């Protein structure tokens, strides 16, 4: 089974530039045209299953808006209060 990942986009920082959308190797990101950030941009969102937590989107994000999680192997588990 492929590794499962998850990302969160902080709408305070996201400017809807689409660099993450184009860079995601799994094509699981898109701008959400039904939402606006406080600055008035359409934020990036996971649109379907298949994120592997590969971190590529966070590497290209110019606004450090993305937090990346990946399925825990065994130890190092963190509790996420989201």
């Amino acid at each position, binding site marked *: 089974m492929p590794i499962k*990942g998850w990302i969160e986009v902080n709408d305070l920082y996201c400017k809807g530039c*689409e660099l993450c959308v184009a*860079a995601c190797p799994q094509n699981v990101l898109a701008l959400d045209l039904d939402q606006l950030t406080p600055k008035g941009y359409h934020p990036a969102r996971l649109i379907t299953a298949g994120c592997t937590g590969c971190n590529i989107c966070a*590497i290209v*994000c*110019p606004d450090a808006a993305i937090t*990346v999680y990946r*399925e825990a192997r065994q130890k190092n588990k963190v509790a*996420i209060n989201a």
Partner: protein
Amino acid sequence: MMLAEKQTMDLIYQRPESLSDAITHYCPGCTHGIAHRLVAEVIDEMGLREKTIGVAPVGCSVFAYNYFNTDYVEAAHGRAPAMATGIKRVLPDRTVYTYQGDGDLASIGMAEIMHVAARGENITVIFINNAIYGMTGGQMAPTTLPGMRTTSSPNGRDVELSGYPIRMSEMLATMDGAGYIVRRSLHNPANIRKAKKAIRLAFETQEHGLGFSMVELLSSCPTNWKVTPNEALTFIADHMVPVFPLDDFKVHPAIANLKV
């Protein structure tokens, strides 16, 4: 995904501590932001946050002092290397770096950058080459590509009239005072990773007292290039890299052997 599932996940990446909470004023997709993030990640990883002093330029990155969680000062246009010299000489135990655009560094600040390298000042320079004056509306810079349209070269840079682009890294690498001079690019994930490693090695050069260090980063300006953020990355790969080759121009032997 359900909350229960998320709780069994490892945190892989989050916003670095050395970035402040501020929302930057950079245009969407401008890779100044990527450069900031990489510098912040390196400062975090090396544990330098409490002793770092940044020197901001004039240009789009003029507000860099608001965007980092470290001490920061603001220099007059082009004078960041001179200011960094003074700070480093008075406070030699601090990590001192400048962050400068190509107008700031290669035009009005040409004298300061050449002499800081010649003196071998033990500071680091992060040099953002986006081939244009971003802040002032997209005028020609010393790094503008031949034929490239800017607001002050509307028919494309004419090399007969305005000369050729200046390759700062190549020039500075001739200075005996330089310990680490490389050029990297921010146009895709692989190159961004290499850029981060170079920033790490530049700061390591300073921490090891090996002289002047600079990382030149090919960077985008989607607004003044008048393209989308993703098209701007393609422009870097297709048009800037051939003129500004990605290479190591000078690496001190002690840094070449360093494992980070």
